């Protein structure tokens, strides 16, 4: 298929359709409204169903009900809406239901603002709702990558029977870039029959389906918890994704950032490299499972580490866990909806290289 200029949100919506998703339940919130708007006219064209729910609480429970039948289902929201979905996300994870959720993050806390942010990192990667669970979290840095990751997300969700979250900052949703949808995309996972789904019990060999996260007996619940943990371990072993651009085996500064911030950092880095500075970049693509090992290895090759985020320092904590004190870690974050410009990023990189600025 030819390249098409698309807004991030629209590309995300189209990617869901390309992944065979026929169901969307959502509630309006800026800056992701173009996803439900796009799907409200596209889904009926492909025999699908769009429902505008009365709230994110309801939308997230609708995807629970739809996923319980084994059909592919999608929702999207932005920060305050994801907070309202957190109860259902915990139930989805506890009931092992595959769904894809896009969070096009805005700046918080509270109502915050509608400008881009990355301050939902903790919420997305560490849980958000109650109980021991994780979503698999994917963070694109371009519209093309968003479209690709959404398609992967549906397969990962089905394969692991787990919610998968696309975590994009507002910029990913709002910017326009050329996108290409391949006509012969090869699935990344083989999906077995969904014999766990509640589709009406025919007594034809499959056990009666009960979609449930309630286990009143402590032993049974602990076994369930262990099964979930085993699944997360499998993700950690097989699904870690990252992008790295390191200038050899020894260099002066390792930059770590994700999403659109990493793109800005990459531009700043190129400019400084042209001036002879030795800087490397590593960009986690899966935020859960986190590429601890890759960051640890890359940090060993650098003299110092510099983390950029549109938050007060959330991924920073995972970088600290990866580096474990082996190298000084510096942080530069913007909040309030401010972006980081390439000039600003370059200035911070130079500061660290010149030995200025306190480490974390």
């Amino acid at each position, binding site marked *: 298929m030819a390249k098409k200029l698309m807004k991030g949100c629209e590309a995300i919506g189209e990617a869901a359709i390309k992944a065979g998703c026929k*169901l969307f*339940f959502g509630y309006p919130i800026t800056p992701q409204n173009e996803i439900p708007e796009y799907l409200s006219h596209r889904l009926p064209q492909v025999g699908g*169903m769009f*429902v505008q*729910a*009365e*709230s994110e*609480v*309801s*939308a997230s*429970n*609708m*995807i*629970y*009900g*739809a*996923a*319980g*039948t084994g*059909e592919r*289902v999608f929702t999207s929201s932005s920060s305050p809406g994801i907070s309202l979905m957190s*109860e*259902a996300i915990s*139930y989805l994870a506890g*009931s092992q239901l595959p769904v894809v959720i896009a969070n096009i993050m805005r700046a918080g806390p509270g109502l915050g603002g509608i400008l881009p942010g990355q301050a939902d990192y903790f919420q997305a990667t560490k849980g958000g709702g109650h109980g021991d669970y994780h979503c698999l979290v994917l963070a694109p840095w371009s519209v093309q990558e968003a479209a690709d990751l959404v398609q992967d997300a549906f397969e990962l969700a089905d394969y692991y029977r787990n919610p998968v979250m696309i975590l994009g900052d507002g910029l990913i949703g709002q910017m326009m870039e050329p996108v290409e949808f391949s006509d012969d995309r090869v699935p990344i996972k083989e999906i077995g029959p969904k014999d766990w789904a*509640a*589709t*009406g*019990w*025919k*007594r034809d060999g499959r056990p*009666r*389906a*009960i*979609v*449930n*996260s*309630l286990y009143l007996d402590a032993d049974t619940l602990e076994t369930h918890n262990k099964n979930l943990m085993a699944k997360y371990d499998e993700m950690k072993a097989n699904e870690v994704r990252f992008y790295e651009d390191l200038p050899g085996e020894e260099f002066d500064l390792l930059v770590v950032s994700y999403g659109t911030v990493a793109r800005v950092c990459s531009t700043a880095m190129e400019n400084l490299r042209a001036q002879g500075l030795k800087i490397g970049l590593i960009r986690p693509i899966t935020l859960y499972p986190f590429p601890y090992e890759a960051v640890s290895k890359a940090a060993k090759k650098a003299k110092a580490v510099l983390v950029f985020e549109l938050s007060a320092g959330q991924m920073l904590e995972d970088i600290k866990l990866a580096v474990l004190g082996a190298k000084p870690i510096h942080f530069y974050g913007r909040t309030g909806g401010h972006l980081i410009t390439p000039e600003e990023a370059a200035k911070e990189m130079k500061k660290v290289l010149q030995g200025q600025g306190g480490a974390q």
Partner: protein
Amino acid sequence: MTELVFKYPEALTQANTHYCPGCTHGTIHRLVAEVIDELGIRDRTVGISPVGCAVLAYNYFETDFQQASHGRAPAVATGAKRARPDLIVFTYQGDGDLASIGMGEIIHAANRGEKITVVFVNNAIYGMTGGQMAPTTMPNQKTTTSPDGRDVALAGYPIRVAELISTLKTPAFVARGSMHSPLQVVRSKELLRRAFNYQVQGTCFSLVELLSTCPTNWGLPPDKACRWVETNMVPYYPLGIFKTPEGDDRAPMPR
């Protein structure tokens, strides 16, 4: 020759329920199961259990099931029914679940005209959590969080769900029955049959409110609990059909 005159409905498992002795939850399960059997829909029915005493309903109905978070059963049912319109989807909800935390979900599911069936069990109290006040608790009724009786000046009056839902313009079948006597049980089954049948026909949203007992938290033996329904609840929660998709809506409630 012996003739089988009474048996478990096919749509019920033979598990012992955890319901308290004399609680009418069990009778309501049986009515729903009989209707599922009689309509021949067991193999395409998906039930949605609530948070409340009926949370374990999936252990008692011999159909596929999904367990919903507190109050969200109508949203879960919406998702399942929209995903698979060929399924018969019903929710089974208590009054705390449906009329308090889940009021938003039920109103909007009804207003969208979701082709689902809602079995609404109104026992005027939170059973599972130990007898706290519900939105349906009667004026002056003592509960663990209204120890001196429900004070309507502070807590408002009990919500009449069937009446509330029937004000919506979207076509629906909305009715109220009661479980306090054999006659009312038979009538309630008829209401449930009509409700499920509207879904089988693909006609409309349907909700049957059933006045039910909670002997344990009311502190009454089962027979007295039934009398309490009759004397205290029925006058405030009148029985009958409030709305049909054919349009014969009941006149506004007498005060």
